[in-house]
């Protein structure tokens, strides 16, 4: 097998003595949808923040597509084709939906020291943005201020923004968080379509979605990997059942 698209070795990060990432190793092959699950506080968001570049690891290495990106700033990673969406929706709420996505397009079209032409009239920016919005089903909402859209729609804008750069890999931090059942199902369909085209690292609490979508699953507990494997293996792994799935099922019945 060729080199994996993303390779993480000996990654460690601590905050004031709390070990958030503990000697973590992870490989994601090109083309797979790799899910990361784990109970609250397992360090999932800390991990994805280190992959995306918001946090710098204390030690260890992250390689992406043959480059050592451990110390690269966020914008350089994004230019290499590693796009991230945020768990907490992080948009430009005072700009229009189309402006939001057009800014993501603009990020991929060279420097922006262009001071005169009206950017909102540039087809090079607006057309790919409209296309991405059509792709996630928000074409009709493009000209509204982002602040008036629903939470579920915000998640879709996030996805559209991640898509416009034609990234090779998407880091998705709980794309289903806070979505109703209908919106969740729509998101699952969207991801199922997307995984045919790019590599996805998915952090998600929605177990049904994870087991439906993932090619491989890594289980994280207290910053350590306790198991990695195909969904079927993870489902039958005793340690995982004990550490996580049992808890989730108990939670599930509690809610049900």
């Amino acid at each position, binding site marked *: 097998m060729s080199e994996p698209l993303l390779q993480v070795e000996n990654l460690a990060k601590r905050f004031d003595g709390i070990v958030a990432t503990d000697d973590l190793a992870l490989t994601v092959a090109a083309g797979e949808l790799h899910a990361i699950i784990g109970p609250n506080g397992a360090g999932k968001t800390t991990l994805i923040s280190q992959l995306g570049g918001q946090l710098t690891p204390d030690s260890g290495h992250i390689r992406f597509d043959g480059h050592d990106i451990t110390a690269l700033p966020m*914008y350089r990673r994004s230019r290499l084709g590693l796009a991230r969406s*945020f768990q907490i929706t992080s*948009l*430009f709420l*005072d*700009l229009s939906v189309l402006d939001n996505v057009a800014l993501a397009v603009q*990020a991929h079209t060279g420097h922006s*020291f*262009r001071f005169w032409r009206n950017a909102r009239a540039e087809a090079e920016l607006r057309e790919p943005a409209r296309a991405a919005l059509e792709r996630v089903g928000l074409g009709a909402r493009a000209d509204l201020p982002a602040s008036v859209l629903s939470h579920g729609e915000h998640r879709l804008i996030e996805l559209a923004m991640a898509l416009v750069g034609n990234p090779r890999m998407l880091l998705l931090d709980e794309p289903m968080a806070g979505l109703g059942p209908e919106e969740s199902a729509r998101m699952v369909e969207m991801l199922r379509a997307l995984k045919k085209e790019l590599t996805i690292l998915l952090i998600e609490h929605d177990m049904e979605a994870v087991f439906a979508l993932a090619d491989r699953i890594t289980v994280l507990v207290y910053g350590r990997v306790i198991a990695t494997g195909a969904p079927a293996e993870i489902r039958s792994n005793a340690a995982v059942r004990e550490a996580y799935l049992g808890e989730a099922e108990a939670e599930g019945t509690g809610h049900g």
Partner: protein
Amino acid sequence: MSGALTIRNSVVFVLLAALALLPLYVGLGGNIFVLTLFTRIVILAMAAVSLNLILGYGGMMSFGHAAYLGIGGYAVGILAHEGIYSGFAQWPVALFASALFALVIGALSLRTRGVYFIMITLAFAQMAYYIVAGLARYGGDDGLTIYKRSQFFEPVNLSNKVQFYYLCLTLLFGATYLVYRLVNSRFGMVIQGARSNELRMRAIGFPTYRYRLVCFVIAGTLCGLAGALLGNHTDFVSPSMMYWTRSGDLIIMVVLGGMGSVVGPLIGAVALLVLEELLSGITEYWQIILGPLLLLVVLFARGGIDGLLAKAGAKGQP
């Protein structure tokens, strides 16, 4: 900005037309003092327009913007004092010195956020104030009289009040148009994106620091030009031009007129300074009236006067 005939557009049009025709009124026997007052208003409006670029569009709450007024003014004053009267020398020096100051201040202060940014810009401006106040050769605390206004080619004569007014007005319109182009360009989209959500801008691939820095320098340079005009207007420069309360006045103009609206600061400058003039004619305690008025605008009109006008127009639509 749409071309439709809304209340807002009508008000803006009337304001611009009034500014353009003002010397006519004075020529027809009106009070010459009005022209002097409005020359000052136009110059400070230009400073407010430049502040709006970083404050309204960039979200950079600079509390030291008056420093550039002083730097621009002193560039003219110091050179005139040394016998260099040519505007072709004075004005480029004013612009360059302001740009350089903005570059240094910006490079340091843009690494901070929020209250720290406000305090550090304030601190640098006050530093400039005390440095200028210590320049004994150029009058120190007492300031420096400019005996001869900037010289350009014939027939341009800055001592002619009407000519000078039109020069200031042209530069104000030019600056406003420049800001309008800037904020709608790709550069402007980056600046506004960074105001709205800087972390996200970096995550999608923008090195925001350098864009914000360039924006900061453009705003400082524009304000330096206003400073060169102000020095010529008053025939006098003093450290008080760059005192922190002056920076506060500029912020008030921007907030009053409407942050992040291209014509907002122009409206704000006219409203604030005319109000100040009228109220101070009525009572010496005019600030007691002005203060609550400003408070009302901040509390009930988030978009400033321009925002109010736009809203009034929207209500009128079916």
